[in-house]
């Protein structure tokens, strides 16, 4: 039984990570065919990434969309999370429910409906159309993260600041925001990550400016391009690891600085 459980965990981990670990292996393999045995070390796939202009513009598009989406979703998230954690107002339950639904809604529905509505309203498809869709799916995650931060925040912190003569805005900037900062950063990073690798909405709304996932999908039609996709995947993997480490560092530092007991991370 013990052995069985261990074997199960081992297999699970293998299934989870082995495909990912193949990315860096083939990214430096000197062959256009993705197969063993390996045929030697090369950096030409990485060099190819450097020299592909279309890839650069797709990357810039994706970064622009992800940063804008993360910023907007986090700002909207702060507003909604504070309102729902602090105030009782009529219809709070249903309103919050409807805001959170896109978390579970199939992206293809959001993609198709936004496409139809935007075209009917006479808007051109653009990066902003994708941002609109991404904000819609990221905001619920931002709210979920930020709401628990607001719920943990002692309401007398804000009252104490008001009591000591500061305005509501000054209180928000000097007390509330610093105290929820770890959650703000978490929310930003999660939204950033979701937006960066989102495919379906981006595919429907991208028009003539592809995002990175849409670009990668396009390249898969050419078997010769697959090794450079592997190289690109390796870079994205590194970027995700960096984001993860940074997020965890921020969270722990926040917990230590405010003396709040470590309550376990997002990941």
């Amino acid at each position, binding site marked *: 039984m013990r052995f069985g459980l261990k074997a199960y965990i081992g297999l699970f981990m293998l299934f989870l990570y082995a495909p990912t670990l193949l990315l860096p292996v083939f990214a430096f393999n000197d062959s256009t065919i993705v197969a063993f045995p390996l045929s030697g070390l090369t950096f030409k796939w990485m060099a190819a990434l450097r020299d592909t202009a279309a890839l650069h513009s797709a990357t810039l598009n994706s970064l622009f969309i992800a940063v804008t989406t993360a910023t907007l979703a986090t700002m909207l998230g702060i507003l909604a999370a504070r309102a729902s954690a602090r105030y009782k107002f009529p219809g709070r339950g249903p309103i919050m429910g409807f805001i959170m639904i896109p978390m579970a809604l199939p992206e293809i529905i959001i993609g198709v409906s936004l496409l139809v509505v935007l075209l009917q309203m006479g808007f051109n498809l653009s990066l902003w159309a994708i941002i609109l869709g991404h904000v819609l799916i990221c905001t619920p995650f931002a709210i979920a993260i930020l709401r628990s931060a607001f719920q943990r925040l*002692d309401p007398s912190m804000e*009252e104490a600041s008001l*009591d*000591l003569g*500061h305005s509501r805005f000054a209180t928000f900037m000097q007390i509330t925001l610093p*105290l929820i900062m770890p959650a703000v950063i978490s929310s930003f990073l999660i939204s950033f990550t979701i937006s960066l690798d989102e495919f379906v909405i981006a595919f429907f709304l991208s028009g003539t400016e592809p995002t990175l996932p849409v670009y990668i999908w396009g390249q898969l039609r050419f078997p010769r391009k697959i090794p450079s996709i592997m190289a690109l995947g390796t870079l994205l993997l590194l970027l995700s690891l960096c984001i993860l480490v940074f997020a965890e560092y921020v969270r722990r530092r926040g917990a230590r600085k*405010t003396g709040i007991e470590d309550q376990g991370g997002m990941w």
Partner: protein
Amino acid sequence: MSKPMIQLEHINKYYGNYHALRDVSCEIKEGEFFSLLGPSGCGKTTLLRTIAGFETPQSGHLAIDGAVMDGVPANKRPTNMVFQSYAIFPHMSVAENVAYGLRRQRMPKAELRKRVEAALANVGLAGYGDRAAHALSGGQRQRVSLARALILKPKVLLLDEPLSALDKKMRENMQSELRHLQRSVGITFVLVTHDQEEALIMSDRVAVMFDGEIAQLATPQELYSRPINRKVADFIGSMNFLSADVTSQSSGKISVSIAGLGGADLTIDQAPAGTTGAVCAGIRPELMTIVATGDAAHEHTADGKIIEAQYCGDMTYYDVLLDGTTEPVSVSMRNTSGRAILKEGNTAQIGWGSDSVVLLPA
């Protein structure tokens, strides 16, 4: 001392259908240590938060130092508050916490540092400025919270159950320290507490609150010796209640017959106005004595039987069933040298004085 600092007029506060403050009116004088005492849910904290500006009453008016506070937000009121949780900002140092209220006033760094250091010294935390706020103990947080509020020289300092989170020893220390601090700064303190002992020890005057109303507002001595009704009497210390009848009443004198104790002549200030017929006589356990041989004569005596004796070191607590009654009374005796500790079943003679009795509505 006689000038009113806070005037509350007909304050009503509802939360939905719940009537949290019922037509509360009172005056808090300048420079006094005033306590709001009552069980949880009696509205004392709501009243304090109304003074601070965190709650808006549906009707009634509130004035601080003569200025009406209608529509004045918390950050514009001449009050500062010490919160129950202390609300020390965890992302700031002790000095930054204390200086927080002075941030809006542009002042030279050296001047600011001097004032912060003085404020910290005032609460016994000289030299703690550079510490991280979250590394402090409960008592130290309490002091930082006090320093942070007092540095702004408010007209009124509001304290919301400030000692409830401290352990017993620390609480007793802080009680006398707060009292001394209040005398030395001369600021009006309004304290909210559910601890009757704390209210008696610290306050110049106490307002006892039940169900959103002030039941009695009096000095600690008055409150203890002349409670206005059974509820107040029961909340402040403990009291024996015996049924009694008013037998005759003339100018300044009132004669009663108390079940188990017998008749007594009381002065009129021991009874609520217009008392006649069946009433309730209250007498504190420590104001009755179990008579021992060789005691000086007592004004009144009554006989009974000890049904329970509880020895507690410095005191012994007896339950005595007085002859002709069905409910025992509590009698507490200090264990002085030479006094015997009596056992259950012993007969005992109770000595008492008519000035120890207070008549209450039945």
